[in-house]
């Protein structure tokens, strides 16, 4: 018994000693690689908009394929979360579906001691989803505002059946939330009865199952729901979201998606941004069901074979 215990004690001591040894070993190797090899083997960290996670991942996959040895990590969390992380210096690049506020730019300047660089990389159109059974085909921005501030409570008030409207929206950390609040609600508050879900996919899922539901989010997520046509303020007619209507900006709810970096960020970061803007990068944008930045006229991109998901969902 006593002997067993001694053996156990010796082993545990030996084990802990060896553990300690191993720890110091890895510690030294880690520092040596960091000092000897070039900085671009360090993983580049990206965080931000949930809308852009898929896009960022496609960019990263393609970029890493072209540049073996580089590592790019993409995280979501919301545009606000990404920008906060850029301010706190925990990431290299923030993805955001809204432009940075002045006070945030100032905070970057103060805390990171560098100016912030804004690069638009793609265009997303914010679609408004309703259940496929819902007879409502179009809404004006004013009607949408009435619905989401809680003034309009029944579908019959906007040309639908007699049924209460069930609101689905995003968390306040989401850039989509900010965009919708600014451009549709005219900065008024959302109705407290609006349910906030953790992402556009969750909203689409809820609306697909809820006959009286209405939700909003990136068009790329539309599956088994109808993206309705929207009539802008003072516009003559409602426009359905499609590649053409977004490209010629006749669709009222479209927005740019941004990369935010620091001016003094290392070369590996600026190379990634350059890649996103290159023709290859813009092809990735299109493949991920977002809209590429149209540098030429809208006709440039109009010939593409990839259908916009919005029209796709409508036909289904």
């Amino acid at each position, binding site marked *: 018994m006593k002997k067993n215990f001694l053996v156990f004690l010796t082993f545990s001591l030996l084990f802990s000693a060896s553990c300690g040894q191993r720890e110091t070993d890895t510690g030294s190797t880690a520092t040596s690689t960091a000092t000897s090899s070039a900085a671009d083997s360090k993983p580049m960290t990206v965080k931000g908009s949930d809308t852009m996670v898929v896009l960022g991942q496609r960019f990263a996959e393609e970029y890493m394929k072209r540049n073996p040895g580089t590592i790019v990590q993409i995280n979501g969390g*919301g545009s606000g979360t990404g920008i*906060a992380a850029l301010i706190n210096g925990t990431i290299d690049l923030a993805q955001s579906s809204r432009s940075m506020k002045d006070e945030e730019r100032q905070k970057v300047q103060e805390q990171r001691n560098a100016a912030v660089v804004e690069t638009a990389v793609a265009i997303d159109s914010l679609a408004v989803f309703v259940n496929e059974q819902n007879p409502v085909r179009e809404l004006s921005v004013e009607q949408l505002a009435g619905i989401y501030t809680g003034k309009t409570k029944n579908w019959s008030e906007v040309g639908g059946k007699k049924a209460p409207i069930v609101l689905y929206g995003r968390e306040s950390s989401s850039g989509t939330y900010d965009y919708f609040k600014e451009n549709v609600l005219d900065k008024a508050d959302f109705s407290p009865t609006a349910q906030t879900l953790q992402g556009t996919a969750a909203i689409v899922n809820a609306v697909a199952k809820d006959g009286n539901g209405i939700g909003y989010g990136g068009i790329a997520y539309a599956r088994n729901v109808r993206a309705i046509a929207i009539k802008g303020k003072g516009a003559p007619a409602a426009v359905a979201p499609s590649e053409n209507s977004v490209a010629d900006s006749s669709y009222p709810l479209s927005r740019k998606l941004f990369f935010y970096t620091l001016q003094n960020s290392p070369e590996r970061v600026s190379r990634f941004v350059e890649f996103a803007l290159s023709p290859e990068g813009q092809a990735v944008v299109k493949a991920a069901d977002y809209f590429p930045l149209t540098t030429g006229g809208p006709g440039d991109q109009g010939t593409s074979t990839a259908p916009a998901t919005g029209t796709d969902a409508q036909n289904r």
Partner: protein
Amino acid sequence: MLRTASRIDLGRGERIRTAQSAFMTVLFTAAGLSAIAVIFLIFIFTFKEAASIFTDPEVGKEANLHRFFVDRQDGPTLVDQFIWQPTSDVPKMSFYPLLAGTLKSAVVGLLFACPIGVAAALFTSEFASRRVREIVKPVIELLAGIPSVVLGFFALIVLATWLQHLFGFTYRLNAYNAGLALGFALVPIVFTISEDGLSAVPRSYREASLAVGATRVQTAFKVILPAATPAIFASFVLAFGRAIGETMILLMAGGNAAITSLSLEDPLRTLSATIAAELGEVVFGSGHYAALFFIGTLLFVITFISNTIGQLIIARMQRRMQGHG
């Protein structure tokens, strides 16, 4: 000569043994104390961040007790009067919608879990054959091992749809849905503690009851159950603590609309889900940040009190039962 050698040997062995036991005592004491220290430090941290609403005038202007508990907006209904909208241009930080959500989900969860948990415990301890008990007990306890995110996901996708089809709710995600999903997580807590309590009732109680001619059912309901009441009550209290603190299930299944209403058909937003949803984007050191930590402190205090009460009741009952045994 031989005798002295053996005596020396013995002395050394004893010394090693005392050294060993002293060493192990120190080791285990340190491990035990570190757990207490960690809890204490977490509380200090949470409290410190929350206290900035009292200490920092800048933060206090944005977030204060008046705003949490007194402020009331103009509006015809409670829903319009007490609002949680901390990121609005005019921040509104009423705790009432969040408290209502937390209480509603906890009540539904407990109403579901308590009867089922106690009934299952009574069944396994009093009626089940040994073979059945050995299957039922681990299976229910396995329920405790299901990650809450899985339960939440199930409630969000499947349960909500079932309930809406069955009862025709306007809102898919409501207090029934959230409470039921929460109930799944509470059943094992109620079951385990109640079952321990029921099995701790001394054999002599059972024997005495059966000896005077009571049936097994009478014995179970009139003798064993009353004797184990403190443990069952403790299981409810501990389940309440868990229900208040549970986050992921309610974040996913509750719909997250901060509505001040007592209707179980409305969506809800709990205190804990609010922290989880909003801490990611909050500006460090702002009023909103302090308000979230204040919620955290509130949750900590509530669960601390309910857990302490639960543990005290269990300890008291164990002492009493041992006295009888």
